[in-house]
């Protein structure tokens, strides 16, 4: 999501599940949608059946998606940027890109700063400090800004420093032969699929990309997704029905979690968490509001102040007054660590701090860190240093039971050594409570409770509310260092111990606290009315909205997340009255790009929005319906340039665009630049558990994945799911199995520098040996889903015992895919 937001402006799937039926080419890469998104995959099948769409699957394994794909190419895990770089180069050198689209809707015409450079021999961008081994100054990764404060441009794309020309030169290195050398597929196979994928550059064709954790689980994951974004922009596939870069979220509500402030550095609505240096509300808002980089650009974040103040009113209610800057003075801020950087509280850093003894307690709700985080042994050792641990779950799981003999023995501890007090709270599951899920397509979908939770199990909101009320009571009785934020929190719900989610939804959408007036003084939203438009929010405290992005989901018309109409006026499966889709019920993001400069759809059979001379018709446009196409407001309104970024100025930690870096553990040195083989911006952790292996000791590439039969570490408690996939297994190429004397069904052991696991061998033709840079390289893989607790064969084969705590420097996602192991028969 870090990548999509920096490239397009919003961190979400650009189109939607139902729109995939409109594609001519579907590239499944970095995801296995048939396996992990089988229900959504029906739209791929509809595209195949009804449009004769071509499904291309690129993956380290011949998987269930490959089984129904028209083309399959096997690549080495962790080399996707090289493959995508090859596709970008193929599109540019064969003139298979949508020139007019690129000129209108991307930053290709903008000029790059003269100070920007890339050292292709060493593999580092300008600003690299060789001594400190870090990018110490990335100010050169920017545009050439003119005296008017706007980026200079060359609409002909000919200027040698135009993004277009610099990009062309940058990716020229990614020839089919180079792709073959790095990825292990043949140059011929690459060219064949490159031809299919780039065939969508014409206005009458559209292609989509579906990806998931196969792209996000790398030490270069954000750049990887950016490379795919560049390709789709060059092909003119963003913002169009049947196009898009579609991030498939792996859990029912992961998009909702991201939207509502789940990541440590974001508040709901992607408002950044204030930093300790942002002394005043004004300073914070100023820092969070970008300046427009093109003259007419909409730059929608210029409204940050309205969204922030409305959110503060939702958080602190009556305690948010003009005098205390609407509660900003009560608001927590991100502290600076010793090194001067702001503290990082993303997953791997939390467990690193825990392992260092820096945490006293830990709440784990709907999470199983021992199993689902990387490097399980480090997590177990970390938990053993806590004073207390609270786990709210449906089933007892490995984290709540980490103190068990067999689990602690993995880190050479016994239950007597550990003082952590563990509280296991039974929590209701999704079917035992109402509420909403926000799916990949940004649909906020209400769901209704099916059954009451069993026994003492409680819905999460009740568990959280009861803890909060108890804490508030203690603050009220005993004071404390800074009781005001807790005492002032806006807890207005009719049932304070278990707030109704209907009320919470109303609050997230927000309402007018006073009459809201327009510039002429006319009342646009009466006091007490629900908000229905972003720009009806005010920065003067007269509106309240928990998450500006969700405005429109719960209006005076009611809870629109409950809508279930299958009316489809577009005929393209947009279903505008099925639930509510953020933003503003827009079904395809950046839909301005579905039409040319004059507002005429590129493809009359697949209309996103169209200008009828007076107004935009079709999907919800990004700006007011009567703003003419010539107004040049920018198709990407969340970016200050108004255009999508091929070259990303100053957002990423590891470069303005995507270069192939090897996984941190790799069987070969980077053939492009061995000196900086893996991502130079990655910061390693230093605990004794953070060990890395060499190719000599661990010669086999390994990847982890999920099975359609199981959901994470949860369905191992369901006897039917357990029956379908009863035991942990390791998929092994036939040739490697023969070399090691391993037969199908034999017990094998996989060992990495972090740990080892055992399971049944699945010897298969579906993973083939590869030639990488002139050497034979084997890949193996295994699914997650097994552990110590649950039904069936739970023999401690936690996949993450072998994965490394190595994280992407932007998203901090761990490298679960593409690390090194050795394999032996037990």
């Amino acid at each position: 999501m870090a990548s999509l937001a920096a490239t397009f402006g919003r961190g979400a799937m650009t189109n939607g599940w139902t729109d995939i039926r409109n594609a001519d080419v579907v590239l499944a890469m970095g995801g296995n949608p048939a396996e992990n998104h089988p229900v959504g995959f029906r739209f791929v099948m509809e595209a195949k059946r009804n449009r004769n769409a071509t499904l291309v699957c690129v993956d380290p394994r011949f998987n269930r998606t490959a089984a129904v794909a028209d083309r399959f190419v096997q690549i080495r895990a962790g080399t996707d940027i090289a493959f995508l770089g090859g596709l970008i180069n193929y599109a540019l050198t064969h003139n298979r890109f949508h020139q007019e689209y690129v000129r209108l809707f991307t930053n290709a015409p903008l000029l790059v700063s003269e100070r920007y450079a890339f050292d292709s021999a060493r593999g580092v961008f300008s600003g690299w400090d060789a001594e400190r081994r870090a990018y110490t100054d990335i100010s050169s990764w920017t545009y050439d800004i003119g005296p008017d404060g706007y980026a200079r441009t060359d609409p002909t794309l000919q200027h040698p420093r135009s993004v277009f020309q610099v990009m062309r030169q940058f990716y020229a290195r990614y020839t089919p032969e180079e792709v073959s050398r790095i990825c292990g597929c043949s140059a011929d196979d690459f060219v064949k699929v490159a031809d299919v994928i780039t065939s969508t550059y014409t206005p009458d064709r559209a292609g989509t990309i579906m990806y998931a954790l196969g792209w996000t689980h790398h030490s270069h994951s954000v750049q990887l997704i950016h490379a795919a974004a560049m390709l789709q922009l060059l092909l003119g596939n963003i913002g169009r029905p049947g196009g898009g870069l579609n991030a498939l979220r792996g859990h029912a509500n992961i998009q909702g979690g991201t939207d509502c402030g789940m990541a440590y550095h974001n508040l709901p609505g992607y408002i950044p968490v204030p930093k300790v240096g942002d002394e005043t509300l004004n300073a914070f808002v100023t820092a969070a509001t970008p300046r427009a980089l093109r003259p007419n650009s909409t730059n929608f974040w210029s409204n940050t102040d309205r969204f922030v103040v409305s959110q503060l009113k939702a958080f602190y209610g009556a305690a948010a007054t003009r005098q205390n800057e609407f509660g900003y003075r009560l608001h927590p801020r991100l502290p600076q660590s010793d090194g001067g950087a702001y503290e990082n509280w993303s997953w791997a850093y939390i467990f690193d701090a825990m392992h260092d003894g820096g945490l006293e307690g830990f709440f784990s709700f709907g999470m199983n860190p021992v199993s689902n985080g990387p490097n399980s042994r480090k997590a177990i050792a970390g938990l053993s240093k806590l004073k207390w641990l609270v786990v709210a779950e449906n089933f007892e799981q490995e984290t709540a039971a980490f103190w068990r003999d067999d689990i602690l023995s993995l880190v050479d501890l016994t239950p007597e050594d550990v003082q952590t007090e563990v509280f296991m709270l039974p929590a209701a599951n999704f079917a035992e409570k109402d509420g909403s899920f926000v799916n990949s397509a940004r649909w906020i979908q209400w769901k209704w409770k099916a059954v009451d939770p069993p026994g003492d199990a409680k819905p999460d909101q009740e568990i959280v509310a009861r803890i909060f009320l108890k804490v508030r009571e203690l603050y009220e009785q005993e004071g404390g260092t800074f009781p005001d934020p807790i005492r002032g929190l806006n807890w207005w719900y009719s049932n304070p111990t278990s707030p109704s989610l209907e009320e919470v939804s109303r609050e997230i959408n927000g309402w007018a606290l006073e009459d809201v007036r327009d510039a002429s003084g006319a009342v646009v939203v009466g006091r007490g009315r629900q908000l229905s438009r972003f720009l009806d929010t005010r920065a003067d405290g007269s509106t309240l909205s928990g998450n500006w992005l969700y405005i429109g989901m719960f209006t005076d018309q009611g809870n629109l997340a409950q809508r279930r109409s299958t009316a489809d006026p577009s005929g393209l499966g947009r279903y505008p009255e099925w639930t509510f889709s953020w933003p503003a019920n827009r079904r395809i993001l950046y839909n301005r790009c579905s039409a040319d400069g004059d507002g005429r759809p590129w493809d009359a059979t697949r209309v996103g929005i169209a200008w009828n001379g007076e107004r935009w018709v079709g999907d919800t446009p990004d700006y007011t319906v009567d703003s003419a196409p010539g107004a040049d407001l920018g198709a990407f309104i969340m970016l200050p340039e108004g255009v999508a970024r091929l070259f990303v100025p100053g957002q990423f930690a590891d470069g303005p665009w995507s270069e192939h870096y090897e996984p941190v553990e790799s069987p070969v040195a980077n053939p492009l630049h061995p000196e900086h083989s893996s991502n130079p911006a990655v910061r390693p952790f230093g605990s004794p558990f953070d060990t890395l292996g060499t190719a000599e000791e661990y010669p086999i590439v390994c990847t982890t994945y999920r099975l359609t039969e199981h959901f994470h570490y949860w369905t191992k408690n369901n006897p039917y799911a357990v029956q379908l996939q009863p035991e942990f297994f390791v998929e092994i190429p036939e040739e490697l199995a023969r070399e090691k004397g391993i037969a199908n069904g034999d017990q094998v052991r996989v060992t990495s520098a972090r740990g080892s696991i055992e399971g049944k061998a699945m010897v298969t033709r579906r993973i083939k040996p590869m030639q990488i840079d002139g050497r034979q390289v084997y890949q193996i893989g295994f699914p997650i889903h097994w552990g110590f607790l649950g039904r069936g064969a739970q023999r401690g084969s936690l996949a993450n015992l072998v994965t490394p705590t190595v994280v992407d420097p932007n998203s901090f996602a761990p490298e679960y895919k593409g690390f090194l192991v050795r394999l032996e028969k037990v």
Partner: protein
Amino acid sequence: MSLELLRISASGSPAPGVRSVPAVTKLVDTTTCIGCKACEVACQEWNDLPPEPTTQTGTYQTLPDLTANFWNLITFNEHDDSGTLRWLMRKDQCMHCSEPGCLIACPAPGAIVQYANGIVDFQQDHCIGCGYCVTGCPFDVPKFNPRTRRVYKCTLCVDRVSVGLQPACVKACPTSCLQFGTKEAMLEIANRRVEQLKASGFARAAVYDPPGVGGTGVVTVLAFADQPELYGLPRDPTVPMAVSFWKGPLKWIGNLAMLGGLAVAAIHYVRFGRKEDPDQIPNPKDQIPNSTTRL
């Protein structure tokens, strides 16, 4: 849709069905099956079947074969198509043959019926557990449960179909590789898909609807229809010769033999009268074997 009977096992009397009912058919398009197994569990849940004990044997397939409690199995077969790997997934289940070998072989009156809509259904309360249906089936589908001593298989969700619902597996299928309707409608969809497959390079694609059993109530789209064995399907399934003979011409020979025997007995009775020693007449309770314990 009402359940008019078309045929009843081991019964000479005409079936009571009087109305004409269209044959129902399930379409299995193996080329759009993703092997997700939703159908497997949907089948178990609808039919109240317990989960099976399984182990990992080096395959994605849940079980090696159908069982008495597992009537719907997705088979996974790897096939090397001249250098191109194929992973073929097929739904193994009762094919609901128009000429059902199981029904023809069945000696227990009413234990197997065929409805006018084509569904072949086992009536376990009439089943004697003899297992003749197992030998009669060219697809090796019916499975004997040694605990209940009855034989089981897919019912094509006859209980759902009879109230206008589609089978549970079809309902659960996310990709619509399973569809349900009249035979005519399903064949039309299947043939359209075959044309599409042929156009995209699968020259030997075809619909599997074997004539040797009179066609089936489950028709299957195969990309490699010239090699049905790749999917675990027999090339030319027919009702086994022994079963056809036994229930066909042989049955008449048998009947004649039996009539002959009766005639001889009658003549014997007329000529020599009743057998004298009553102690030698066995007690039927002790002697007649419990038919359900045989196999």
